[in-house]
Protein backbone atom coordinates (compact mmCIF):
# COMPACT_ATOMS: atom_id res chain seq x y z
CA UNK A 1 0.00 0.00 0.00
CA UNK A 2 1.31 3.47 -0.83
CA UNK A 3 2.19 6.04 1.82
CA UNK A 4 -0.73 8.10 0.61
CA UNK A 5 -3.21 5.22 1.09
CA UNK A 6 -1.81 4.40 4.51
CA UNK A 7 -2.13 8.03 5.68
CA UNK A 8 -5.65 8.24 4.27
CA UNK A 9 -6.61 5.06 6.10
CA UNK A 10 -5.39 6.50 9.40
CA UNK A 11 -7.20 9.79 8.87
CA UNK A 12 -10.37 8.00 7.75
CA UNK A 13 -10.33 5.82 10.85
CA UNK A 14 -9.95 8.86 13.06
CA UNK A 15 -12.78 10.64 11.26
CA UNK A 16 -14.94 7.49 11.30
CA UNK A 17 -15.31 7.71 7.51
CA UNK A 18 -14.61 5.42 4.57
CA UNK A 19 -11.16 6.02 3.02
CA UNK A 20 -12.96 6.92 -0.22
CA UNK A 21 -14.53 9.89 1.58
CA UNK A 22 -11.12 11.35 2.41
CA UNK A 23 -9.93 13.36 -0.61
CA UNK A 24 -6.60 15.17 -1.06
CA UNK A 25 -8.20 18.59 -0.73
CA UNK A 26 -10.20 17.72 2.42
CA UNK A 27 -9.21 19.77 5.44
CA UNK A 28 -9.19 18.24 8.91
CA UNK A 29 -12.06 20.56 9.76
CA UNK A 30 -14.04 19.21 6.78
CA UNK A 31 -13.49 15.72 8.12
CA UNK A 32 -14.60 16.66 11.64
CA UNK A 33 -11.21 16.01 13.22
CA UNK A 34 -10.67 18.28 16.24
CA UNK A 35 -7.41 19.15 17.98
CA UNK A 36 -7.36 15.96 20.08
CA UNK A 37 -8.19 13.93 16.97
CA UNK A 38 -5.29 15.58 15.16
CA UNK A 39 -2.87 14.69 17.95
CA UNK A 40 -4.17 11.13 17.91
CA UNK A 41 -3.79 10.95 14.10
CA UNK A 42 -0.21 12.16 14.30
CA UNK A 43 0.50 9.53 16.95
CA UNK A 44 -0.96 6.84 14.70
CA UNK A 45 1.08 8.09 11.73
CA UNK A 46 4.29 8.11 13.80
CA UNK A 47 3.57 4.54 14.88
CA UNK A 48 2.75 3.42 11.34
CA UNK A 49 5.88 4.86 9.70
CA UNK A 50 8.25 4.91 12.67
CA UNK A 51 8.95 8.59 12.21
CA UNK A 52 8.75 11.68 14.41
CA UNK A 53 6.41 14.37 13.13
CA UNK A 54 7.52 17.87 14.19
CA UNK A 55 4.16 19.03 15.47
CA UNK A 56 3.44 21.10 18.55
CA UNK A 57 -0.27 21.38 19.39
CA UNK A 58 0.37 24.81 20.95
CA UNK A 59 1.67 26.19 17.68
CA UNK A 60 0.22 24.10 14.87
CA UNK A 61 1.45 26.57 12.23
CA UNK A 62 4.94 27.16 13.67
CA UNK A 63 6.56 23.94 12.48
CA UNK A 64 7.25 23.25 8.83
CA UNK A 65 4.80 20.37 8.93
CA UNK A 66 1.81 21.52 6.89
CA UNK A 67 -1.59 20.26 8.03
CA UNK A 68 -3.72 22.55 5.87
CA UNK A 69 -5.25 19.61 3.99
CA UNK A 70 -4.83 15.88 3.41
CA UNK A 71 -2.54 16.33 0.40
CA UNK A 72 -0.20 18.57 2.43
CA UNK A 73 -0.10 16.02 5.27
CA UNK A 74 0.69 13.19 2.83
CA UNK A 75 3.46 15.24 1.22
CA UNK A 76 4.94 15.97 4.65
CA UNK A 77 4.86 12.31 5.62
CA UNK A 78 6.44 11.25 2.32
CA UNK A 79 9.26 13.72 2.95
CA UNK A 80 9.81 12.46 6.51
CA UNK A 81 9.79 8.83 5.36
CA UNK A 82 12.30 9.55 2.57
CA UNK A 83 14.59 11.34 5.02
CA UNK A 84 14.46 8.38 7.38
CA UNK A 85 16.62 6.14 5.18
Amino acid at each position, binding site marked *: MSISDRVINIIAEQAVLEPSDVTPDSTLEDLGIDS*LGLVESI*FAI*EEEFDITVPFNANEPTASDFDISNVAAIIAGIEKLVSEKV
Partner: protein
Amino acid sequence: MKRVVITGAGTINSLGHSVPDTLEAMREGRCGISELEFRDVDRLSIKIGGQVRGFEAEGRFNRQQMTLYDRFTQFTLTAAKEAIDQSGIVFSGDLAARSGVVLGTAGGGVSTWDDNYRSVYEDGKNRVHPFVVPKLMNNAAASHVSMEHNLKGPSFTVSTACASSNHAMAQAFQLVRSGAAPAMVTGGAESMLCFGGVKAWEGLRVMSKDACRPFSANRNGMVQGEGAGIFVFEEYEHARARGADILCEVVGFAMSSDAADIVMPSKQGASRAMAGALADARLNASDVCYINAHGTGTAANDKTECAAVAGVFGPHADDLMISSTKSMHGHLIGGTGAVELLACIMALRDGVIAPTIGYEEPDPECALDVVPNEARDAKVDVALSNAFAFGGLNAVLALKRI
Protein backbone atom coordinates in the same frame (compact mmCIF):
# COMPACT_ATOMS: atom_id res chain seq x y z
CA MET B 1 -29.05 23.40 57.37
CA LYS B 2 -30.67 21.11 54.81
CA ARG B 3 -31.36 17.42 55.28
CA VAL B 4 -29.47 15.12 52.92
CA VAL B 5 -30.81 11.85 51.54
CA ILE B 6 -29.51 9.19 49.18
CA THR B 7 -31.78 8.67 46.19
CA GLY B 8 -29.64 6.50 43.96
CA ALA B 9 -26.92 3.88 44.30
CA GLY B 10 -24.74 2.12 41.76
CA THR B 11 -21.80 -0.23 41.93
CA ILE B 12 -19.57 -2.68 40.19
CA ASN B 13 -17.22 -4.84 42.23
CA SER B 14 -16.15 -8.45 42.53
CA LEU B 15 -19.50 -9.42 44.10
CA GLY B 16 -21.67 -8.04 41.31
CA HIS B 17 -22.10 -5.59 38.49
CA SER B 18 -25.06 -3.82 40.12
CA VAL B 19 -26.43 -2.94 43.56
CA PRO B 20 -29.04 -5.76 43.63
CA ASP B 21 -26.42 -8.37 42.68
CA THR B 22 -23.96 -7.02 45.25
CA LEU B 23 -26.53 -6.94 48.06
CA GLU B 24 -27.64 -10.46 47.23
CA ALA B 25 -24.03 -11.64 47.47
CA MET B 26 -23.63 -9.83 50.80
CA ARG B 27 -26.82 -11.41 52.14
CA GLU B 28 -25.56 -14.82 51.13
CA GLY B 29 -22.06 -14.19 52.48
CA ARG B 30 -20.47 -14.95 49.11
CA CYS B 31 -16.77 -14.36 48.57
CA GLY B 32 -15.68 -12.41 45.48
CA ILE B 33 -11.99 -13.02 46.13
CA SER B 34 -10.24 -15.43 43.79
CA GLU B 35 -7.08 -16.05 41.77
CA LEU B 36 -5.96 -12.89 40.00
CA GLU B 37 -5.83 -12.94 36.23
CA PHE B 38 -3.60 -10.46 34.42
CA ARG B 39 -0.23 -10.25 32.69
CA ASP B 40 2.83 -11.30 34.74
CA VAL B 41 0.75 -12.45 37.72
CA ASP B 42 3.19 -15.37 38.04
CA ARG B 43 5.86 -12.89 39.14
CA LEU B 44 3.78 -11.82 42.14
CA SER B 45 3.84 -13.48 45.53
CA ILE B 46 0.29 -12.23 46.18
CA LYS B 47 -1.98 -13.89 43.64
CA ILE B 48 -5.49 -13.29 45.00
CA GLY B 49 -7.87 -10.35 44.87
CA GLY B 50 -11.43 -9.22 44.48
CA GLN B 51 -11.23 -8.81 40.72
CA VAL B 52 -14.22 -7.73 38.64
CA ARG B 53 -15.06 -10.56 36.21
CA GLY B 54 -17.04 -10.57 33.01
CA PHE B 55 -16.93 -6.82 32.54
CA GLU B 56 -16.71 -6.09 28.82
CA ALA B 57 -15.70 -2.47 28.34
CA GLU B 58 -15.70 -2.94 24.58
CA GLY B 59 -19.25 -2.55 23.35
CA ARG B 60 -20.20 -0.56 26.43
CA PHE B 61 -17.93 2.33 25.37
CA ASN B 62 -17.02 3.47 21.88
CA ARG B 63 -13.52 3.50 20.43
CA GLN B 64 -12.87 7.16 21.27
CA GLN B 65 -14.10 6.66 24.81
CA MET B 66 -11.91 3.59 25.24
CA THR B 67 -8.82 5.68 24.45
CA LEU B 68 -9.77 8.06 27.28
CA TYR B 69 -11.23 5.76 29.96
CA ASP B 70 -8.91 3.94 32.32
CA ARG B 71 -10.51 0.94 34.05
CA PHE B 72 -11.28 3.06 37.14
CA THR B 73 -13.17 5.52 34.94
CA GLN B 74 -15.04 2.67 33.24
CA PHE B 75 -16.12 1.36 36.65
CA THR B 76 -17.13 4.85 37.76
CA LEU B 77 -19.25 5.57 34.70
CA THR B 78 -20.96 2.18 34.94
CA ALA B 79 -21.85 2.69 38.60
CA ALA B 80 -22.83 6.34 38.08
CA LYS B 81 -25.30 5.38 35.38
CA GLU B 82 -26.96 2.86 37.69
CA ALA B 83 -27.16 5.41 40.53
CA ILE B 84 -28.50 8.26 38.43
CA ASP B 85 -30.98 6.01 36.60
CA GLN B 86 -32.30 4.71 39.92
CA SER B 87 -32.56 8.19 41.35
CA GLY B 88 -34.52 9.36 38.32
CA ILE B 89 -32.91 12.76 38.68
CA VAL B 90 -32.32 14.66 35.43
CA PHE B 91 -29.65 17.33 35.54
CA SER B 92 -30.72 20.33 33.50
CA GLY B 93 -31.02 24.09 33.90
CA ASP B 94 -30.37 25.48 37.36
CA LEU B 95 -30.19 21.98 38.90
CA ALA B 96 -27.36 21.07 36.50
CA ALA B 97 -25.57 24.38 37.07
CA ARG B 98 -25.46 23.86 40.84
CA SER B 99 -24.95 20.09 41.12
CA GLY B 100 -21.53 18.46 40.83
CA VAL B 101 -19.43 15.35 41.33
CA VAL B 102 -17.05 14.57 44.20
CA LEU B 103 -15.29 11.24 43.93
CA GLY B 104 -12.55 9.45 45.79
CA THR B 105 -9.67 7.43 44.40
CA ALA B 106 -6.25 6.65 45.79
CA GLY B 107 -4.44 5.66 42.62
CA GLY B 108 -6.50 6.93 39.69
CA GLY B 109 -5.44 5.35 36.43
CA VAL B 110 -2.96 2.86 37.86
CA SER B 111 -3.19 0.41 34.96
CA THR B 112 -2.60 3.25 32.49
CA TRP B 113 0.62 4.17 34.32
CA ASP B 114 1.52 0.49 34.44
CA ASP B 115 0.87 -0.22 30.76
CA ASN B 116 2.77 2.83 29.58
CA TYR B 117 5.74 2.41 31.91
CA ARG B 118 5.95 -1.15 30.63
CA SER B 119 5.87 0.15 27.09
CA VAL B 120 8.68 2.69 27.51
CA TYR B 121 10.85 0.86 30.05
CA GLU B 122 10.41 -2.82 29.25
CA ASP B 123 9.53 -2.70 25.57
CA GLY B 124 11.84 0.24 24.89
CA LYS B 125 9.26 2.26 22.99
CA ASN B 126 9.84 5.99 22.81
CA ARG B 127 6.32 7.10 22.08
CA VAL B 128 3.10 6.85 24.10
CA HIS B 129 -0.49 7.49 23.15
CA PRO B 130 -1.41 11.20 23.33
CA PHE B 131 -4.15 10.62 25.89
CA VAL B 132 -2.05 8.94 28.58
CA VAL B 133 -2.26 11.98 30.86
CA PRO B 134 -6.02 12.65 30.59
CA LYS B 135 -6.60 8.91 30.99
CA LEU B 136 -4.56 8.38 34.14
CA MET B 137 -5.27 11.60 36.06
CA ASN B 138 -7.08 11.10 39.37
CA ASN B 139 -9.90 13.44 38.40
CA ALA B 140 -10.58 11.72 35.06
CA ALA B 141 -13.52 9.74 36.42
CA ALA B 142 -15.16 12.76 38.09
CA SER B 143 -14.73 14.79 34.91
CA HIS B 144 -16.25 12.12 32.68
CA VAL B 145 -19.24 11.75 35.04
CA SER B 146 -19.73 15.52 34.87
CA MET B 147 -19.64 15.43 31.06
CA GLU B 148 -21.84 12.37 30.72
CA HIS B 149 -24.55 13.62 33.08
CA ASN B 150 -24.35 17.41 32.58
CA LEU B 151 -23.15 18.22 36.10
CA LYS B 152 -21.80 21.77 36.04
CA GLY B 153 -21.44 22.63 39.72
CA PRO B 154 -18.59 21.93 42.17
CA SER B 155 -16.65 18.87 41.04
CA PHE B 156 -13.36 17.46 42.23
CA THR B 157 -11.54 14.33 43.32
CA VAL B 158 -10.38 13.54 46.82
CA SER B 159 -7.39 11.32 47.45
CA THR B 160 -6.85 10.11 51.00
CA ALA B 161 -5.77 6.51 50.41
CA CYS B 162 -8.24 4.07 51.97
CA ALA B 163 -10.53 6.85 53.20
CA SER B 164 -10.82 8.60 49.81
CA SER B 165 -14.44 7.80 49.08
CA ASN B 166 -15.60 8.51 52.65
CA HIS B 167 -13.86 11.87 52.51
CA ALA B 168 -15.42 12.46 49.08
CA MET B 169 -18.93 11.58 50.28
CA ALA B 170 -18.37 13.82 53.30
CA GLN B 171 -17.62 16.74 50.97
CA ALA B 172 -20.72 16.00 48.90
CA PHE B 173 -22.76 15.80 52.10
CA GLN B 174 -21.50 19.18 53.23
CA LEU B 175 -22.24 20.78 49.88
CA VAL B 176 -25.84 19.58 49.97
CA ARG B 177 -26.36 20.18 53.70
CA SER B 178 -25.09 23.75 53.44
CA GLY B 179 -27.41 24.49 50.53
CA ALA B 180 -24.52 25.06 48.11
CA ALA B 181 -25.72 22.23 45.86
CA PRO B 182 -29.20 20.68 45.53
CA ALA B 183 -27.71 17.30 44.60
CA MET B 184 -24.28 15.74 44.25
CA VAL B 185 -23.01 12.59 42.59
CA THR B 186 -20.43 11.04 44.90
CA GLY B 187 -18.56 7.90 45.90
CA GLY B 188 -15.34 6.47 44.63
CA ALA B 189 -13.50 3.95 42.50
CA GLU B 190 -10.25 2.04 42.38
CA SER B 191 -8.54 -0.27 39.96
CA MET B 192 -5.08 -1.26 41.14
CA LEU B 193 -5.25 -4.93 40.22
CA CYS B 194 -2.45 -4.97 37.69
CA PHE B 195 1.15 -6.13 37.99
CA GLY B 196 2.62 -2.83 39.19
CA GLY B 197 -0.32 -2.07 41.47
CA VAL B 198 -0.16 -5.35 43.36
CA LYS B 199 3.67 -5.42 43.32
CA ALA B 200 3.73 -2.07 45.14
CA TRP B 201 1.37 -3.42 47.82
CA GLU B 202 3.44 -6.59 48.20
CA GLY B 203 6.30 -4.43 49.38
CA LEU B 204 4.46 -3.49 52.55
CA ARG B 205 4.05 -7.14 53.56
CA VAL B 206 0.53 -6.60 54.84
CA MET B 207 -1.22 -8.69 52.19
CA SER B 208 -2.73 -12.10 52.77
CA LYS B 209 -1.89 -14.92 50.38
CA ASP B 210 -5.08 -16.85 51.08
CA ALA B 211 -8.06 -14.86 52.43
CA CYS B 212 -9.28 -11.71 54.14
CA ARG B 213 -10.47 -12.69 57.64
CA PRO B 214 -11.25 -9.50 59.54
CA PHE B 215 -11.37 -9.79 63.36
CA SER B 216 -10.56 -13.50 63.26
CA ALA B 217 -7.60 -14.47 65.46
CA ASN B 218 -5.95 -16.22 62.51
CA ARG B 219 -6.23 -13.22 60.16
CA ASN B 220 -3.11 -12.65 58.13
CA GLY B 221 -3.61 -9.50 56.13
CA MET B 222 -5.62 -7.58 53.63
CA VAL B 223 -6.75 -8.57 50.15
CA GLN B 224 -7.20 -5.99 47.44
CA GLY B 225 -10.38 -5.48 45.48
CA GLU B 226 -11.45 -3.20 42.63
CA GLY B 227 -14.58 -1.47 41.44
CA ALA B 228 -16.71 1.55 42.18
CA GLY B 229 -19.59 2.71 44.32
CA ILE B 230 -21.51 5.82 43.29
CA PHE B 231 -24.48 7.58 44.93
CA VAL B 232 -26.82 10.47 44.39
CA PHE B 233 -26.92 12.67 47.50
CA GLU B 234 -29.91 14.98 47.33
CA GLU B 235 -31.51 17.66 49.44
CA TYR B 236 -34.49 16.08 51.23
CA GLU B 237 -37.21 18.49 50.11
CA HIS B 238 -35.92 18.38 46.55
CA ALA B 239 -36.11 14.59 46.59
CA ARG B 240 -39.60 14.60 48.12
CA ALA B 241 -40.92 17.18 45.71
CA ARG B 242 -40.11 14.97 42.76
CA GLY B 243 -41.35 11.83 44.48
CA ALA B 244 -37.94 10.13 44.60
CA ASP B 245 -37.46 6.81 46.35
CA ILE B 246 -35.28 7.67 49.36
CA LEU B 247 -32.79 4.95 50.32
CA CYS B 248 -31.66 6.52 53.62
CA GLU B 249 -30.59 9.80 55.18
CA VAL B 250 -27.02 10.96 55.70
CA VAL B 251 -27.09 12.62 59.10
CA GLY B 252 -23.50 13.41 59.98
CA PHE B 253 -19.82 12.90 59.44
CA ALA B 254 -16.46 13.69 60.94
CA MET B 255 -12.88 13.66 59.84
CA SER B 256 -9.78 13.44 61.97
CA SER B 257 -6.04 13.11 61.51
CA ASP B 258 -3.88 10.91 63.70
CA ALA B 259 -0.86 13.17 63.19
CA ALA B 260 1.22 10.23 64.33
CA ASP B 261 2.40 7.59 61.87
CA ILE B 262 2.27 7.18 58.10
CA VAL B 263 0.97 3.59 58.24
CA MET B 264 0.10 2.53 61.80
CA PRO B 265 -3.48 3.34 62.80
CA SER B 266 -4.31 5.20 65.99
CA LYS B 267 -7.07 4.36 68.45
CA GLN B 268 -7.41 8.03 69.33
CA GLY B 269 -7.75 9.19 65.74
CA ALA B 270 -10.36 6.54 64.98
CA SER B 271 -12.25 7.30 68.21
CA ARG B 272 -12.33 11.02 67.51
CA ALA B 273 -13.74 10.40 64.04
CA MET B 274 -16.54 8.11 65.30
CA ALA B 275 -17.38 10.35 68.24
CA GLY B 276 -17.26 13.36 65.96
CA ALA B 277 -19.70 11.81 63.50
CA LEU B 278 -22.15 11.09 66.34
CA ALA B 279 -21.85 14.65 67.63
CA ASP B 280 -22.29 16.09 64.13
CA ALA B 281 -25.44 13.97 63.68
CA ARG B 282 -26.66 14.84 67.20
CA LEU B 283 -26.89 11.16 68.04
CA ASN B 284 -26.10 9.29 71.21
CA ALA B 285 -23.73 6.36 71.07
CA SER B 286 -26.62 4.12 72.12
CA ASP B 287 -28.55 5.05 68.94
CA VAL B 288 -26.07 3.17 66.74
CA CYS B 289 -27.11 -0.39 65.84
CA TYR B 290 -24.58 -1.21 63.14
CA ILE B 291 -21.06 -0.17 62.18
CA ASN B 292 -19.59 -1.04 58.84
CA ALA B 293 -16.02 -1.47 59.98
CA HIS B 294 -12.89 -0.46 58.18
CA GLY B 295 -11.94 -4.05 59.09
CA THR B 296 -9.02 -4.65 56.75
CA GLY B 297 -7.99 -8.01 58.19
CA THR B 298 -4.56 -6.74 59.23
CA ALA B 299 -3.31 -7.30 62.76
CA ALA B 300 -2.95 -3.56 63.35
CA ASN B 301 -6.24 -2.23 62.02
CA ASP B 302 -8.67 -4.69 63.50
CA LYS B 303 -7.52 -4.54 67.09
CA THR B 304 -7.13 -0.76 66.99
CA GLU B 305 -10.59 -0.34 65.48
CA CYS B 306 -12.20 -2.63 68.05
CA ALA B 307 -10.46 -0.78 70.88
CA ALA B 308 -11.70 2.52 69.46
CA VAL B 309 -15.28 1.21 69.21
CA ALA B 310 -15.12 -0.10 72.77
CA GLY B 311 -13.85 3.29 73.92
CA VAL B 312 -16.44 5.40 72.10
CA PHE B 313 -19.46 3.19 72.76
CA GLY B 314 -18.66 1.90 76.25
CA PRO B 315 -21.03 -0.89 77.39
CA HIS B 316 -23.16 -0.33 74.24
CA ALA B 317 -20.24 -1.71 72.18
CA ASP B 318 -21.38 -5.18 73.24
CA ASP B 319 -24.91 -4.55 71.93
CA LEU B 320 -24.12 -3.21 68.49
CA MET B 321 -23.11 -5.18 65.42
CA ILE B 322 -19.93 -4.45 63.47
CA SER B 323 -18.96 -6.24 60.28
CA SER B 324 -16.35 -5.96 57.58
CA THR B 325 -17.56 -6.67 54.06
CA LYS B 326 -13.94 -6.47 52.84
CA SER B 327 -13.94 -10.19 53.62
CA MET B 328 -16.19 -10.56 50.55
CA HIS B 329 -15.25 -7.83 48.04
CA GLY B 330 -11.69 -7.15 49.19
CA HIS B 331 -10.24 -3.75 49.99
CA LEU B 332 -11.14 -1.32 47.23
CA ILE B 333 -8.68 1.24 48.68
CA GLY B 334 -9.96 4.64 47.52
CA GLY B 335 -13.32 3.18 46.49
CA THR B 336 -13.87 1.00 49.51
CA GLY B 337 -16.04 3.27 51.66
CA ALA B 338 -18.43 3.72 48.75
CA VAL B 339 -19.02 0.00 48.19
CA GLU B 340 -19.26 -0.51 51.96
CA LEU B 341 -21.92 2.20 52.22
CA LEU B 342 -24.14 -0.28 50.37
CA ALA B 343 -23.97 -2.58 53.41
CA CYS B 344 -25.17 0.31 55.58
CA ILE B 345 -28.03 1.02 53.20
CA MET B 346 -28.99 -2.68 53.24
CA ALA B 347 -28.97 -2.65 57.06
CA LEU B 348 -31.13 0.47 57.27
CA ARG B 349 -33.51 -0.24 54.41
CA ASP B 350 -33.78 -4.01 54.30
CA GLY B 351 -32.93 -4.85 57.91
CA VAL B 352 -30.17 -7.23 56.83
CA ILE B 353 -26.69 -7.04 58.31
CA ALA B 354 -23.93 -8.13 55.94
CA PRO B 355 -21.63 -10.65 57.61
CA THR B 356 -17.89 -10.76 58.18
CA ILE B 357 -17.07 -13.92 56.30
CA GLY B 358 -13.91 -16.01 56.75
CA TYR B 359 -14.28 -15.71 60.51
CA GLU B 360 -12.70 -18.75 62.11
CA GLU B 361 -11.30 -18.00 65.57
CA PRO B 362 -12.33 -15.43 68.16
CA ASP B 363 -9.67 -12.86 69.02
CA PRO B 364 -9.84 -11.46 72.56
CA GLU B 365 -8.59 -8.16 71.14
CA CYS B 366 -11.59 -8.01 68.79
CA ALA B 367 -14.28 -9.13 71.22
CA LEU B 368 -17.28 -7.50 69.51
CA ASP B 369 -20.28 -8.92 67.65
CA VAL B 370 -18.71 -9.04 64.20
CA VAL B 371 -21.69 -10.86 62.62
CA PRO B 372 -19.53 -13.85 61.75
CA ASN B 373 -20.05 -15.69 58.48
CA GLU B 374 -23.83 -15.36 58.13
CA ALA B 375 -26.01 -12.34 57.47
CA ARG B 376 -28.45 -11.44 60.19
CA ASP B 377 -31.89 -9.81 60.25
CA ALA B 378 -32.10 -6.79 62.51
CA LYS B 379 -33.97 -3.52 62.61
CA VAL B 380 -31.37 -0.79 62.26
CA ASP B 381 -32.16 2.90 62.73
CA VAL B 382 -28.64 4.30 62.68
CA ALA B 383 -25.44 3.00 61.06
CA LEU B 384 -21.89 4.27 60.88
CA SER B 385 -19.37 3.65 58.11
CA ASN B 386 -15.71 3.78 59.10
CA ALA B 387 -12.67 4.49 56.95
CA PHE B 388 -9.20 4.87 58.42
CA ALA B 389 -6.48 5.56 55.88
CA PHE B 390 -2.75 5.22 55.62
CA GLY B 391 -1.38 8.59 56.57
CA GLY B 392 -3.69 8.63 59.58
CA LEU B 393 -6.60 10.30 57.81
CA ASN B 394 -9.99 9.15 59.10
CA ALA B 395 -13.53 9.76 57.86
CA VAL B 396 -16.73 8.38 59.40
CA LEU B 397 -20.25 8.83 58.03
CA ALA B 398 -23.48 8.47 60.01
CA LEU B 399 -26.65 7.27 58.26
CA LYS B 400 -30.23 6.96 59.37
CA ARG B 401 -33.25 4.96 58.30
CA ILE B 402 -36.03 7.00 56.74
